[in-house]
């Protein structure tokens, strides 16, 4: 009996001593006081030193894109640190190119704020907000793809460019013990400022997609921040070539709805690549857009159509085959591509072969 008591007491005591020691150390050694954070040479914040730049910025309501939540595994949270960042850490090297290192680009989740610090971030990031949105409706598009409509909190608005994305936070749930953020392109039009629509595919064992497909229901609350991204509608008069596969349809949908809402008169062609008829979705909506938009054609193309299947009247083969077959050469064209890497690489090749200028091809790979 006394052994149990003594050992428990000894263990507790020793642990307590270490804990007190560490707490004292954290208060004294780990305390860097108030430091000055200067952003883009104009905005100044007085912040508590000691935490990472990413979380410091977050607490000032400035959101840097980050998919891993600050663990240094995604490499998205890059910012330019002009002064006070200290040397580049070994955890950052794998994510930085030589050019970025020369420009003082750092991973904000790895870099600690320990002294006055000066950083440079794109002006757009000031526009990024975090919302506690509510799921308003969930619509099943295919076996693996759902469209979700979120309502922003009363009185809050989001302004974004069609084509940009937001980050959805996947919280802890049974079977998931890490919080992550995942990027999804906005599918709704920017004219709807109080709503957001996302098209989300299910990936087996995906942390965020499992959360979306199995845990969210109408009325659920989710945390979304955004908008981010440099893939968006360009205000020119060029002919538009849009190409998407799978959930890559989302930003294209946003572009098209934006054009419809603003009555933009441009020629547009949308190539929607899928494997089988079951993988296509929102066909009625695109048909309707063909009627309402100025000069829009919807071109679905299937790569796995059964031999002798006569019910399918559209294009057959991969999207780049359809482009090579149907695209007329024209000086003034620009392309918007969204989908997986293999699709984008082969479509870029087909487009440049057709004379579309490489700098006029905008894409969003995932």
């Amino acid at each position, binding site marked *: 009996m006394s052994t149990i008591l*003594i050992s428990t007491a000894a263990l507790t005591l020793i642990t307590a001593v270490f804990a007190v*020691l560490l707490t004292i150390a954290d208060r004294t050694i780990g305390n860097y006081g108030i430091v000055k954070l200067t952003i883009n040479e104009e905005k100044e914040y007085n912040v508590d030193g000691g935490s990472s730049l990413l979380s410091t910025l977050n607490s000032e309501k400035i959101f840097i894109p980050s998919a891993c939540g600050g663990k240094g595994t995604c490499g998205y949270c890059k910012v330019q640190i002009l002064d006070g960042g200290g040397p580049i850490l070994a955890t950052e090297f794998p994510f930085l190119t030589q050019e970025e290192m020369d420009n003082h680009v750092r991973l904000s989740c790895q870099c600690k704020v*320990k002294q006055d610090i000066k950083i440079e971030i794109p002006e757009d990031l000031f526009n990024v907000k975090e919302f506690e949105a509510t799921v308003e409706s969930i619509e099943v598009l295919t076996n693996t793809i759902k469209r979700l409509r979120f309502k922003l909190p009363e009185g809050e608005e989001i302004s974004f460019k069609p084509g940009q994305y937001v980050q959805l936070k996947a919280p802890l749930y049974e079977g998931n013990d890490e919080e992550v953020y995942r990027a999804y392109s906005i599918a709704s039009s920017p004219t709807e400022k109080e709503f957001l629509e996302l098209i989300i595919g299910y990936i087996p064992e995906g942390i965020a997609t499992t959360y979306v497909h199995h845990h969210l229901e109408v009325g659920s609350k989710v945390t979304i921040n955004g908008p981010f991204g440099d893939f968006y509608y360009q205000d020119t008069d060029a002919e538009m070539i849009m190409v998407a596969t799978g959930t890559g349809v989302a930003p294209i949908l946003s572009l098209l709805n934006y054009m419809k809402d603003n009555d933009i008169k441009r020629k547009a062609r949308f190539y929607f690549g899928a494997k089988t008829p079951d993988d296509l979705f929102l066909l009625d909506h695109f048909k309707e857009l063909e009627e309402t938009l100025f000069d829009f054609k919807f071109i679905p193309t299937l790569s796995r159509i059964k031999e002798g299947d006569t019910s399918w009247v559209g294009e057959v083969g991969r999207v780049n085959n359809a482009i090579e077959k149907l695209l007329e050469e024209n000086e003034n064209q620009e392309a918007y591509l969204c989908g997986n890497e293999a699709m984008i690489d082969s479509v870029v090749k087909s487009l440049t072969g057709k004379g579309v200028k490489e700098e006029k091809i905008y894409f969003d790979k995932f």
Partner: protein
Amino acid sequence: MIELNPMVIFIAAIFTNNMILSNFLGMCSFVAVSKEINTSLGLGQAVTFVLAATSIINYLVYHYILVPYNLEFLRFIIFIISIAAFVQLIEMIMEKYIPNLYYALGIFLPLITVNCAILGVSLFMIIREYSFLQSFAFAVGSGIGWTMAIVALAGIRQRLKRATVPKGLEGPGITLIVTGLMAMAFIGFSGIVQIQ
């Protein structure tokens, strides 16, 4: 207590009783962080440093707290706690006062908390009933031996990059085979000194 010159223990810990090559302790970071000589050297230094410091702390805690109260059986849990706490503390101190060393070693320190070579050394010094000086020599020697082994492995792996390795053996597979060969080569040292 066995009467061995601390110097003998020091040499033995490096060559004949190498933590990795004769005890297979600390394999996780050994395999994971041995891709480049520079980083493995950094990790080796950090391991040596933590080994030396925690052996002192654990020696004092064991002989002046656990033994008087007959609590030797608590040594596993106490050693792990003290190693973890020490690594945390040293990380904070280094970050603030020796930033250069922190940037060189800093990221390896958290890895070391779970390096079983550290716990192994603390346990061996108790099991083998070393004196304070002997323990310290053993810890430093083990650290140097560990560093030597991981740097040697990193050198080999840098060259292996250019070799064609059978698909199924790529990465950890070939690394473990190389480690085995190195261990056999180290048996050659066993004539020098032996400790147990």
